[in-house]
């Protein structure tokens, strides 16, 4: 084992470098950016990263299985358009929870269809995932724009925005903590002194992260995902239903993309076919920065969380420093390459 020490060291390093990098970013922006390290701003980062992170959860599974899903951005858009259409079609006076659930059910239901098609074609017809999901990228994009008539669909429903922008708790110095709504009787300018705690998108994302982590780490499905990514032939010979798992994986990826689309509806009170366009590459970047290998077999949900946070902190920090936003692309690009270099160094030392 002593001969394995450099490999071991490299493995450890590759596991924790993203944590260290995130920590360094937080320290750097805290020291240089006015208001970066505040409850308000840190929660804003959490709320803003939620959509990206949710989309990255399904992608993590797919990438661990040695696949890739390029369609998630426009599946999210399609789901958000479908969700918006369903919610606005409900008769006036429908209770808000029912409206929200309808949006969720329709968005998710519509979003799962491209995932099912992706999975079936990849599993049964053995077409590479890259090609199939690239095709679905175009199909979902076109479908989303055709359905919405090329324009964002506003969802002007009283109270819907509060689901996407509200907080689980509110704190007002003289009245203490209140649940879901600002304390009664606090109005006008006083509202500015109310502190929101735990934005809903963040809570939503945390719940999904925990569920995804459990699924990957402790379920048979998670283990089989690693096995398929590590050695598909071995998985087949071990009697794992690889085709069925593959279909489930692409449905999972489309499912989390659809959930991201529905959250977008609630947060921005509209549905847009291109709402996830910029998020596809960022979500794949989050997965890769988090230590997943594009060759499959490796990756964790915690890693993906760290990867998404790195991207979100860079974006937020550069805005606070007043740096031209185009630098965000450059910075995230540099981190992706850095992540792959760390991964390669690990492989080299290991062999």
């Amino acid at each position, binding site marked *: 084992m002593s001969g394995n020490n450099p*490999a071991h060291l490299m493995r450890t390093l590759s596991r924790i470098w993203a944590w260290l990098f995130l920590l360094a970013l937080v320290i750097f922006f805290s020291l240089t950016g006015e208001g970066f390290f505040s409850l308000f701003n840190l929660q804003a980062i959490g709320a803003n990263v939620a959509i990206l992170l949710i989309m990255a959860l399904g992608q993590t599974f797919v990438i661990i299985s040695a696949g890739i899903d390029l369609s998630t951005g426009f599946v999210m858009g399609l789901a958000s358009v479908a969700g918006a259409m369903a919610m606005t079609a409900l008769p006036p006076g429908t209770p808000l929870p029912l409206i929200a659930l309808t949006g969720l059910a329709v968005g998710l239901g519509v979003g799962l269809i491209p995932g099912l098609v992706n999975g079936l074609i990849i599993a049964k017809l053995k077409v590479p995932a890259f090609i199939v999901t690239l095709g679905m990228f175009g199909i979902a994009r076109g479908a989303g724009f055709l359905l919405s008539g090329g324009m964002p669909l506003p969802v002007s429903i009283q109270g819907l925005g509060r689901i996407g922008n509200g907080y689980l708790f509110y704190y007002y110095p003289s009245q203490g903590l209140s649940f879901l709504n600002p304390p009664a009787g606090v109005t006008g300018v006083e509202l500015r002194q109310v502190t929101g705690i735990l934005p809903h998108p963040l809570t939503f994302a945390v719940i999904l992260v925990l569920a995804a982590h459990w699924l990957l780490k402790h*379920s*048979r499905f998670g283990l089989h995902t690693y096995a398929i990514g590590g050695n598909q032939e071995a*998985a087949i*010979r*071990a009697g794992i239903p690889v085709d069925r798992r593959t279909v489930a994986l692409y449905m999972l990826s489309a499912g989390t993309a659809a959930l991201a689309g529905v959250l977008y509806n609630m947060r921005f009170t509209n549905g847009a076919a291109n709402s996830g366009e910029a998020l596809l590459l960022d979500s794949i970047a989050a997965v890769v920065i988090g230590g997943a290998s594009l060759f499959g077999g490796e990756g964790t949900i915690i890693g993906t969380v760290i990867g998404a946070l790195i991207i979100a902190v860079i974006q937020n920090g550069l805005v606070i420093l007043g740096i031209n936003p185009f630098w965000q692309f450059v910075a995230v690009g540099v981190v992706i390459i850095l992540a792959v270099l760390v991964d390669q160094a690990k492989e080299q030392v290991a062999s």
Partner: protein
Amino acid sequence: MAQEPLLQLKGVSKSFGAVQALYRVDFAAYRGEVMALVGDNGAGKSTLIKGVAGIYPFDEGEVYFDGQPVQIHNPREASALGIEVVYQDLALADNLDVVANMFLGREMIQKPWRLDEAAMERKALETLDSLAVTTIRSVRQPVAELSGGQRQSIAVAKAVMWNSKLVILDEPTAALGVAQTRQVLDLVRRLADNGLAVVLISHNLHDIFEVADRITVLRLGQNVKEFIAADTTHEEVVHAITAGALRHVPGMVKNG
């Protein structure tokens, strides 16, 4: 040793299109014994065991397991009988640890859906222990970190964990160095000493004479001889492999 064989093949044949890979072969494997299967390249050894494993079912002939006539159509039916095969390309998932590999596809589950890691680890350790596989430091290390011999041991342990009665190994030492070959041969011997029937395919007669109780020689898809290892010599076996008498002249074998 007048015991009844655990596995007995009578007159099995298999052809791939015009290639007659096996022609009316008889074969037997006995509990508590290592049966070596030898023959030149293309003699039909792998085809014979793939028939037993249900990968390429035989075209004709009879298969008896535990005295009962059986039909093995696919690998699952073979497993159900207690037949496990360790293929030369081991089919381990390098990124998974030893426990996960040993249980792959047959994981133990706790309560509704949770993998029962503790129970699997316990059973894996027990199995490795019972086979005296002691060189593996931790059953939680990825198999990528293991040596070739250790990986082979894991593949064998995986095969015997499922109450298997017959374990078939196709060239398990072909890619191994001296010390690791030693490890695996010891393991093969121990399987038989534990009462399993073992079939060992190998091109290395030295290894075979070390662990085998009997030796079946295949030549050009036919079996030419079965030896008791203790009663024969290298020379005799080599002669059978290269020039053993065929009951059917190849040119006279009907094709397809």
